[in-house]
């Protein structure tokens, strides 16, 4: 398929001073700067523990952000992921109930539920023409209601075998991080090399034009929402395997809804849709994780982290906007 596509049809952002290079440049700079700062206090940032820390932090956010990228590329966004992660961790852990034999059914059930929520989001956005902000906020509130009603704390139990997913590692690299990166690779392939992936960009660029060009825009939007929710479901399963049980507020406590949007936008994807990609998103996730880890090593209070994160987000997007204007 990719052979038949002319260069002009490629996602436009690749020609517009690729922000991905800038993101990874910033990441390297940050790693160097962080290493120097930590070294000045007599520590080492990128030792085994540091790398492990950065990658573990990146895994859950990375999974959510990969899905969020799909939705944002179509010009929508998904605010329901944080509650969905909590819900999925519960579904997974309660279905497994400590029984290794139930792992596969539990995973399938969790992902099916996640896909159902995504389908609901997509249908409401595409068919009822509800603004994605409101539609997913509504879904988030509904899931929150269910969680508040039924749970007060952690529930369910994950079998020991399943916990290996969260804790096993090869050298300093966690297996789960590798799986996350593999998923990112798959998403990259989907977006850059397949027809439905191109349609995502087309819909995000201009939904009307895409429709007039013969793209079934409704289907594209629904697909994006389903993929996003499934990614959130995977994040929920990963967190369940880390925690050993399901926790209703595991997604919201970490603020994965706004955090994932921040990571995507930090990675150079336009919030209005149509430009960007998964490679940048992973860079954005790694930048956020590196910032966190560096501050932890430096012993900075967590409140300062929020301030820096906010400033970094605004500055990064302002720089992207300038870059686009100059062209």
């Amino acid at each position, binding site marked *: 398929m990719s052979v038949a596509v002319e260069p002009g049809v490629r996602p436009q952002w690749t020609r517009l001073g690729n922000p991905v290079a800038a993101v990874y440049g910033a990441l390297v700079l940050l790693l160097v700067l962080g290493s120097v700062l930590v070294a000045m206090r007599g520590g080492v940032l990128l030792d085994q523990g540091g790398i492990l820390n950065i990658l573990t932090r990146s895994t859950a956010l990375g999974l959510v952000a990969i899905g969020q990228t799909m939705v944002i590329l179509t*010009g929508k966004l998904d605010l329901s992921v944080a509650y969905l992660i909590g819900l999925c961790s519960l579904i997974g852990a309660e279905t497994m109930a400590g029984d290794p034999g139930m792992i596969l059914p539990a995973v399938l059930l969790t992902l099916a539920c996640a896909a159902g929520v995504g389908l609901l989001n997509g249908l*409401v956005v595409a068919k*009822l*023409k*509800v*603004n994605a*902000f*409101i*539609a997913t*906020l*509504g*879904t*988030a*509130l*509904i899931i*929150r*209601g*269910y*969680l*508040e*009603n*039924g749970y007060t704390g952690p529930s369910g139990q994950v079998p020991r075998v399943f916990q290996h997913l969260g804790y096993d590692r090869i050298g300093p690299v966690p297996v789960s991080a590798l799986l996350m990166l593999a998923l990112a690779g798959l998403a990259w392939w989907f977006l850059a090399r397949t027809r439905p992936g191109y349609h995502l960009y087309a819909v995000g660029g201009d*939904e*009307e034009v895409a429709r007039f060009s013969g793209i079934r825009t409704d289907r594209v939007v629904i697909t994006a929402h389903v993929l996003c929710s499934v990614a959130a479901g995977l994040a929920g399963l990963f967190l369940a395997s880390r925690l050993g049980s399901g926790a209703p507020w595991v997604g919201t406590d970490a603020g994965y809804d*706004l955090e994932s*949007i*921040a990571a995507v*936008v930090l990675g150079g994807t336009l*919030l*209005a*849709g149509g430009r960007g990609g998964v490679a940048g998103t992973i860079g954005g996730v790694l930048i956020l994780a590196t910032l966190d880890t560096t501050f932890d090593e430096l012993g900075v*209070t967590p*409140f*300062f*982290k*929020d*301030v*820096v*994160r*906010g*400033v970094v*987000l*605004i500055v990064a*997007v*302002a720089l992207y*906007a*300038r870059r686009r*204007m100059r062209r």
Partner: protein
Amino acid sequence: MTTTDPASRPSRLPRLADGTAPVLAVLAVLLVALAFAGPAYSEPAGYLALLKRAAPLMILAIGQYFVIVSGGFDLSVGSLVTAEVVIAARLIDGDEAATLWVIPFVLGFGALVGLVNGLITTRLLVPSFIVTLGMLLVLDGAVFLWTGGSPRGALSEAFRTIGREGFDVPLLGQVPWSVLLLAALVAAAVLFMRGGTGRMLVAIGDNETAVRLGGGHVERLRTLAFVLSGLSAAVAAILLGGFAGVSAQVGDGLEFRVITAVVLGGVVLGGGRGSVVAAMAGALTLEALFSLLNLLGISGGLESAVQGVIIIAAVAYAASGRSVFRTRKGTS
């Protein structure tokens, strides 16, 4: 757009902007239902208490309306409310004499945060969703960095009067100060939206390019909308601080609640549609709904689930009546 239709402009009759009628109908139903559900609502005092509870959200809705109708978002209001309350408590620290300068300071701080939001959005061309999300993080972090983790100090009695106390009126009983303040702000907002600046704000949300080509100061007006939103958060903080006292959670989730309220009022995300009265009616509807659910013994989990279903239904209903070609994105 109705506002650009010359025939409808000078009408004296208070016309309802589109999307206003449904929310008013729902509000009326809820108010009547309240009278049946709870004995407290058999006299005006019950409704005044409802208004008093709803006043902060309604005032926030006015500010958020300005931003949304001109095509933006303001996600920073929740953390701004928290920040204002915490700052006021720290500065006053129980000292009655400090109230006089702290209130202007709080208002000024709100306006300043709005100004920064507006300038970054309009001059650096960062989408307002991102700007105000960043501002949310900065405010959250900065305030607790400054106070060292937990809010300290206390508000003075004078500061708390506006949110807590009232004055006696024959027939009505005690009218809270916050309701009086709310009425004044409502009148001001309606007058503002009927004037040239207000109409221009709606026009920017509808078609920014047209306003720019027509010689309108798009950047300046957009920034003004953010400043007004910041100010509304400051006023809401003064009321909430008086009403609920000092806590680090006072503004939690307010940003989403107020956007829900505005959208419930039929204001379209992306700008250009909806009236400020409807936005406030949306806020009051939301509060009335919560009160009703409370009276019916439904609380906690179901409350947010009901809220979720309602906003989706309300927006789906509004969208079904809108022509198909108005589906532009509004994320600037």
